[in-house]
């Protein structure tokens, strides 16, 4: 494991750096694909960066609301540089809403923008998973397999690698779909199917999961629901484009 990149006297934390690289690489790829699809790539950069800004601001404000008695004692902490003082759930939601608002405000074609975003999101997830493997975050369940990795004296499923592999396959499918003429939105739906199935398949190998009921894993349910919903939309589009043949009654 390499939780710290040591460059001379400088010790850089690997995981936050991998997340930054994931964000940058994801946006760069999405912007490039957007240009290929006829959308100005700068719009993708803008939507992503406004979204990031909203994530940070709302994440900190949500932390302030959740732990307001502490902030009343030290109000300047609300603008402090402490990287731990964020609630990422509300922050991410705000980030998505702001990015959506940007796309709506600039009248960008939704389906095309989502097609462009799909490979970027998948590439970002792959890099983030590899970063998690490097530092030993989000570890897998104990395993005695040949390819198990040892983390703190325990051989475990390299679950981060499984997830990265599934997302890599999904990325290949999405890029293949983008190379062929297809209806706008198809690549994004295929990306959602790939991500959903990967999450559904891999989640039971994670050592720590949130449960919904009777031990069923929350992210597995979300993954399966996302994959089924995307498949259903793909089916409807395919069936609408290719209506069933009507057999004329013979006279």
């Amino acid at each position, binding site marked *: 494991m390499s*939780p*710290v990149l040591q460059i001379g006297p400088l*010790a850089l*934390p690997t995981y936050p750096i991998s997340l930054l690289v994931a964000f940058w690489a994801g946006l760069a790829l999405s912007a490039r694909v957007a240009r290929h699809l006829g959308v100005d790539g700068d719009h993708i950069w803008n939507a992503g960066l406004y979204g990031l800004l909203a994530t940070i601001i709302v994440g900190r404000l949500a*932390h*302030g609301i*959740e*732990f307001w*008695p*502490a*902030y009343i*004692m*030290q109000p300047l*902490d609300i603008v*402090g540089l*402490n*990287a*731990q*003082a964020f609630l990422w759930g509300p922050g991410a939601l705000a980030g998505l809403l702001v990015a959506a608002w940007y796309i709506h405000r600039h009248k960008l074609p939704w389906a095309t923008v989502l097609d462009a975003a799909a490979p970027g999101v998948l590439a970002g997830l792959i890099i983030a998973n590899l970063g998690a493997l490097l530092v*030993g975050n989000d*570890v897998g369940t104990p395993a005695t397999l040949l390819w198990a990795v040892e*983390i*703190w*004296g*325990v051989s475990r499923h390299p679950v981060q690698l499984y997830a990265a592999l599934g997302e890599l396959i999904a990325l290949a499918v999405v890029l293949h779909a983008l190379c062929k003429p297809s209806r706008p939105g198809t690549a994004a739906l295929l990306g959602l199917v790939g991500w959903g*199935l990967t999450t*559904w*398949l891999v*989640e*039971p190998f994670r*050592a*720590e*999961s*949130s*449960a919904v009921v*009777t*031990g*069923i*894993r929350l992210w*597995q*349910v979300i993954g*399966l629901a996302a*994959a*089924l919903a995307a*498949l*259903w939309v*793909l*089916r409807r589009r*395919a*069936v609408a484009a*290719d209506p*069933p043949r009507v057999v004329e009654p013979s006279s």
Partner: protein
Amino acid sequence: MTRRTWNLAIGIVLVVGVVWLWAGRIPAAEPAAGGSGLPPAPALGHPAPDIKLTTVTGETFALSSLRGKPVVLNFWATWCPPCRAELPELQAASQRYTGQLDIIGVNQAEPAEGVAAFAQQFGLTFPIPLDTNADTSRRYAVRSLPTTFFIDRNGIIRQIQSGPLTEATLAQALKKIFP
């Protein structure tokens, strides 16, 4: 693909999906947050490695003796400005949660006299074990100061924070070990 093929594909994903959901349930005997049967290590979900050191007041300190109560294990040094900034928070918390929570400040590789004078100046009353040769810091993989481990009443590490604590981040981390 025809409508029939689509329906079949979606049906197969649904059935196999539900079967895998059921098969992949979190085993009832195994707590969702892990910890059982793992070796002691400075990692989330593992039992905290035991510490046996002498405190700045000359008493013997053993981390294992605190089992049954949540513990905040902080690594610090007097020369470290962020450590100095967070010590008042830790002192206030140690007073606020007296008897319910133990706050331990492991000093990294400094002479006892200097640490004692510093503790007196800052009014620190929680135990300060002296990690004289930094062996404990190495065993806990402490790469920067301050680093704080939040250990639950069963001795399992639930949160690790590198960098200074504020009152808010301390409150947030305590929620994981102190219901």
